[in-house]
């Protein structure tokens, strides 16, 4: 498998009042063409920062890519200049943000906002760009696209705006679409529609998708592979089916246990809904040379506090970083 997008040993540092902290700590993963990969983890784990790093949009200062590489089809984007990155953004890699209510510019029509991307990257004329924008609105199932194209964002609902964002992101047929919690701000019913849409349009345009979420339910629904992140580090990776059936890292197991319908049976030892006790450590603790999950872990041992967990390759596709891996045979719902 040749990777389309390859992130290798990426470290992003933030300068904070307490000193320099690695928001992303030695992160590596590959994305194959057309694949849907999910980045999952609780709030503050560095998921959005990973996305921004790929886009070359880490706010600097206070942020800085300290080391590693991000290559798109063999080209190291971290070495690319500003002009080159502007040509990549929105054309080869595009992004949908979490907040549909504020992510569109209030003073331009949605038509203008979609077609300016087309004009910039594809060199289309105004008329061509407008025609294609209408097509895109139609593709994301917005009714009466010829009329809607003249609407301003405030005239659309949140779900509609997110559809516009998706239309805008996919207009130039990018190789990679990064969706950063695209449905978090939307109603549950609208969430399902947006996921259906992303699946359909993603398939149609053959874009590989990185879906960022904190919800294992969305992962199960959307993704083929999953990277679980905790406090800036990758702690487990694998195919969705394997991970859901046999999570080997205690944190992954905890995330799955948060979503009741993923558990096949509910038994006496395993009540309906679990939550992981405690919370993600503050940024100042990131980079700690032990397991950052130790304070919350029920399998913690002395070594966990002293050494950074080693990555164990469990199967060719599944790996986890933990000193005391969950037994493979113990199913979550057992």
């Amino acid at each position, binding site marked *: 498998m040749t990777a389309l997008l390859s992130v290798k040993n990426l470290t992003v540092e933030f300068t904070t009042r307490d000193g320099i902290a690695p928001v992303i700590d030695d992160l590596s993963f590959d994305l194959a063409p057309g694949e849907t990969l999910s980045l999952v983890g609780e709030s503050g784990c560095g998921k959005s920062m990973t996305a921004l790093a790929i886009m070359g949009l880490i706010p600097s200062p206070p942020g800085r890519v300290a080391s590693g590489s991000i290559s798109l089809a063999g080209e190291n984007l971290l070495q690319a200049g500003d002009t080159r990155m502007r040509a990549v953004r929105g054309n080869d890699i*595009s992004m949908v943000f979490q907040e549909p209510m504020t992510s569109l510019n209030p003073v331009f029509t949605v038509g203008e906002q979609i077609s300016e991307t087309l004009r910039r990257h594809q060199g289309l004329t105004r008329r061509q760009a407008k025609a294609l924008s209408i097509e895109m609105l139609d593709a994301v199932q917005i009714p009466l696209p010829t009329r809607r194209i003249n609407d301003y964002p405030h005239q659309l609902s949140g779900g509609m705006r997110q559809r516009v964002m998706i239309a805008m992101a996919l207009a130039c047929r990018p190789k990679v679409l990064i969706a950063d919690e695209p449905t978090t701000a939307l109603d549950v019913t609208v969430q399902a529609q947006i996921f259906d849409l992303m699946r359909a349009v993603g398939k149609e345009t053959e874009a590989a998708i990185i879906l960022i979420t904190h919800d294992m339910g969305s992962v199960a629904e959307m993704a083929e592979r999953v990277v679980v992140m905790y406090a800036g580090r990758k702690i487990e990776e694998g195919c969705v089916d394997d991970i859901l059936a046999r999570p080997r890292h205690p944190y992954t197991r905890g995330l799955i246990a948060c979503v009741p319908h993923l558990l096949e049976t509910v038994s006496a030892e395993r009540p309906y809904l679990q939550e992981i006790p405690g919370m993600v450590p503050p940024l100042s603790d990131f980079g700690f040379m032990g397991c950052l999950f130790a304070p919350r872990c029920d399998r913690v041992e002395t070594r966990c506090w002293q050494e950074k967990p080693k990555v164990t390759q469990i199967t060719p596709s599944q790996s986890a970083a933990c000193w005391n891996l969950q037994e493979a045979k113990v199913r979550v719902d057992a």
Partner: protein
Amino acid sequence: MQFLVITLKRCGLGLGLLLAVLVLNFLLMHLAPGDVADSIAQDAGGLDAEVMAQIRKDYGLDLPLWEQMLKYFYSVAQLDLGYSFYYNQPVTTLILEKLPATLLLIISAQVVSILVGVVLGVIAARKPNGVTSHFVTILSLVGYAAPVFWTGIMLIILFASMIPLFPIGNMVDVSVERTGFAYMVDVLHHLVLPMLTLASIFIALYSRLARASMLDVLGSDYVRTAQAKGLSEFQVVFKHALRNALLPVVTTAGLVFSGIVSGAVLVETVFSWPGLGTLAVQAIVARDTPTILGILFFSSLVVVVANLLTDMLYRIIDPRIKTAETSEI
């Protein structure tokens, strides 16, 4: 359609405001001790009561107050603001003669201060710790603290006296007869210093405002979206960010317009600019009530018109206002 309705509504409000000024004018005129008959009597060295009554009758001063007020409104509607005995001219003629000079001064000051203020603000916001940013901070402090007449005198000392680039005062060089283009250039040459003096306060205001709102907008989600689309830096800053950052500047420009008009009075005096301000000062000294009230009416008119224009401009820049009717003025 809705745009038209709202515009008409705003025009109605503006008219109401002008009417209020007129009522105030009328009452002020009546509160002032003595009337036309008294002043004519004074001029004539005394008149008997019968003649005085006749004069009052001729001028309609014997009518009930409300009727006099209606008559006053009626004559104002015909642009008749009364007669100035001091200048021996109808007040309207007097004002219309001076109005262009004042309009030239306030409009050019407003335009220049918005342009310079916004440009400074944008540069400062893009590099919040850069030289321009500190310059804007200092400028707004000085601009606020310094009184207009002081700035004016300093500019005169600097650029008219020490480095004689510009004339000290007046609107044209009276020693030479000029027409056409040469006349315009001469006027512009005379305009520079008074305009800069008046603009200085507002450059300070607008640059600080533009800097703050630009900083705010540059951190917004939609600017990040614009970046993520791969737009050029120019498009991100001047298309996506600036259009939004201008909104508070436009609102403020409307709000402070009356401040510009009153600032113009001082500036005109310092630079002996032959406009309404100079006329107002002379009229006050001469206790020429009709002229003072006429100027009051005209400056209210200018402010009301400016506010209407601001309101329309705002509605053009911000589509959210055009459709969602808001209740505030």
